[in-house]
């Protein structure tokens, strides 16, 4: 198998190595014409899918490479959303500042949760991230003067840019598209860098990496913080898009949804989680208008993936591609 891959690399090297990037850029180009041909409904649908795909991408990076399965990822999404929302409503809706504040706060929170939870591994890591994230959830519910409690934080405007541009539905879509592509490229660069190789090594065999002389915890913490910050960014975009943030955005079920997106899309790739986000959004939200059983259908699809396509959409695409190549 290794020799096959080597010989394939000679002829198909560029396409194989950059398959993900090519797919993402082609997808981005396709999406870029949506506002020109589609109604405002499609613009809105793809804005939501792209925001969720950034969220899923950040978790996918953690699950796929250093193999950190976190059930508290929604905390970063939610804190980013609240930070951007509160800053936009009380101080200034400038997009650079709101996204900056969201990035900074979710990064800080990821640092704290990371330091506390990365002492454990496996199921214990999962439970501690879940518990800490639920603490943040309860805080968002109780701190009513800041968050509006269970009624949520309302009145979040679409952002503006130094008084030059007030984002509307279409321009906001392009902003989200741009940030989605940048997030993908960021993680891609990380994964291909020496740092990324070490993360993959930690994911495959942590003991061996430690034996070679690496300190897995600091690498894992760095990955965790980067992923948390990007999740916070997606949360901030969500706050601007939705105009409302409620504690539900930080609930552990939102983390679980991201987990399902990653698994359905394909853990171990970067493009997979993004596609998974689109699939799950379509199953959950689009089908909801046609049937009351959309949650059941999502469940069945998820089970099918677990049984028959462990590598998700990305795995299917990959095997189909290899089949075609022969």
């Amino acid at each position: 198998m290794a020799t096959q891959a080597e010989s394939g690399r000679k002829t198909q090297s560029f396409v194989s190595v950059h398959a993900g990037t090519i797919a993402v850029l082609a997808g981005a180009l396709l999406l870029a014409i949506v506002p020109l041909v589609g109604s405002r409904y499609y613009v809105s649908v793809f804005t939501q899918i792209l925001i969720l795909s950034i969220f899923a991408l950040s978790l996918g990076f953690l699950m796929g490479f250093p193999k950190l399965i976190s059930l508290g990822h929604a905390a970063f999404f939610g804190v980013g959303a609240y930070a951007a929302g509160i800053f936009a409503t009380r101080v200034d809706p400038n997009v650079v500042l709101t996204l900056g504040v969201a990035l900074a706060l979710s990064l800080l929170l990821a640092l704290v949760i990371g330091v506390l939870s990365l002492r454990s591994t496996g199921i214990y890591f999962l439970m501690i991230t879940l518990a800490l994230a639920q603490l943040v959830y309860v805080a968002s519910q109780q701190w009513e003067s800041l968050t509006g409690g269970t009624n949520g934080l309302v009145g979040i405007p679409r952002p503006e840019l130094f008084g030059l541009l007030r984002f509307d539905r279409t321009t906001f879509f392009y902003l989200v598209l741009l940030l989605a592509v940048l997030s993908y490229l960021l993680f891609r660069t990380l994964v291909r860098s020496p740092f990324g190789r070490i993360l993959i090594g930690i994911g495959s065999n942590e003991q061996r990496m430690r034996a070679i002389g690496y300190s897995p915890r600091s690498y894992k913490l760095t990955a965790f913080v980067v992923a948390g910050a990007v999740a916070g960014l997606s949360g901030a975009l969500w706050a601007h898009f939705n105009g409302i943030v409620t504690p539900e955005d930080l609930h552990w079920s939102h983390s679980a949804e991201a987990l399902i997106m990653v698994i359905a899309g394909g853990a171990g790739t970067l493009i997979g989680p993004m596609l998974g986000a689109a699939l799950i959004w379509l199953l959950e939200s689009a089908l909801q208008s046609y049937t009351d059983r959309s949650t059941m259908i999502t469940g069945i699809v998820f089970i099918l993936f677990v049984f028959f396509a462990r590598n998700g959409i990305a795995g299917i695409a990959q095997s189909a591609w290899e089949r075609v190549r022969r």
Partner: protein
Amino acid sequence: MGKGDILVPGTANGASTLRRFPFAVAMILLVAFLLLVGCGGGGGGGGQGGGEDPIRIGVILPYSGVYAQLGQDITDGMNLYFEEQGMEIAGRSVELIQEDTEANPQVGVEAARTLIERDEVEIITGTVSSAVAYGVIDLISQDQIPFVISNATGNDVTRRGIPYVFRTSASSWQVSYPMGGWLVDNGVQNVYVSAPDYAAGQEQAGGFKEGLAAAGGNLVDEAYPPLGNSDYSTYLTNISQASPQAEWSFYAGTDAVSFVRQYAEAGLKESVPLYGSGYMVEADTIEGQGDAAVGIRTGLFYASGLDNPENTAFIENFQSQFDRDPSTYAVQGYDAAWLIGEALKATEGDTDPDALVEAMEGVEFQSPRGPLSLDENHNPIQNIYIREAREQNGRIENVVIDTIENVQDPGA
């Protein structure tokens, strides 16, 4: 293992995925199908642009959860009006598109967005919960869609003075403030106040206390049990020990049933007469409260026993159509539909937002609740009726014992 395998862990068992190739094709087809379904649904709303374009009205109400009955009552009230019009106004047919809000702001905002963007509704109406209303107001302001609120009583909903927002229920203040002055006028000076500890409870109690203080009355003490409480005994003991002249309360739904029953069981009803906001003793709670409700005096903008021709006709039509008694919520729904329908008649079916807003401002109501008009914030100016629950005609009814005329919300 080669380097490539580590880089893209997906290839690690590529050989086994290959054998499942037919399944992979099936999955890709499934994804493609879902994309088509998702997109096809989107086209549906806009695709009906034929010659006979219906007027699309989005209805966002809770149809599941604790407020499901309220959502149903409001919807039935609306349907009663539109069916009287033959489901057609100014030559255009009327299409009501319903979405469930679950009384959850996140779900409600998403429902409203879907209605605006996918179904391209021209008017939105609904929301039982004020939290949902606040979220939806931001959305409709962006897209300039008239929004007729048929229940949410949050004071700020209309006090913000957003031109596209109308309300056919009342503000919390409006329902509770008049009772404060009325009690003092009737010789009750010292009052104990209790309400559930959430936004509506605080607003209702706040309005009453303001009215009481303005008339020179005295607040003995106040208590705020949590929402959804089941045992009020400690609060009832405190009320008994404070021995006020009267108790004023706001509770709704199951809380109202528990509180009123326990109040009567504790024997307080005789020593400390119970007054309250009208939502505490209404069509939806009376059945559960039974005799415990008898004698309680509450203030609201409607009473089933109101004697006017519109109310008589409304009750009769509602009963024959839906086989049950209408509630205050049904009246709110009927008036919301009336406001939308009469405005559309005035614009001759034109749904341009600004034309509609102007027409709505000029609508004259014939409401079962009696005189009704809108103030400059589009909140109703209406009578508040002091009602006493009495046993008559073999059931418990709210009988009007006094009327406070033309109560207007003070605004911002």
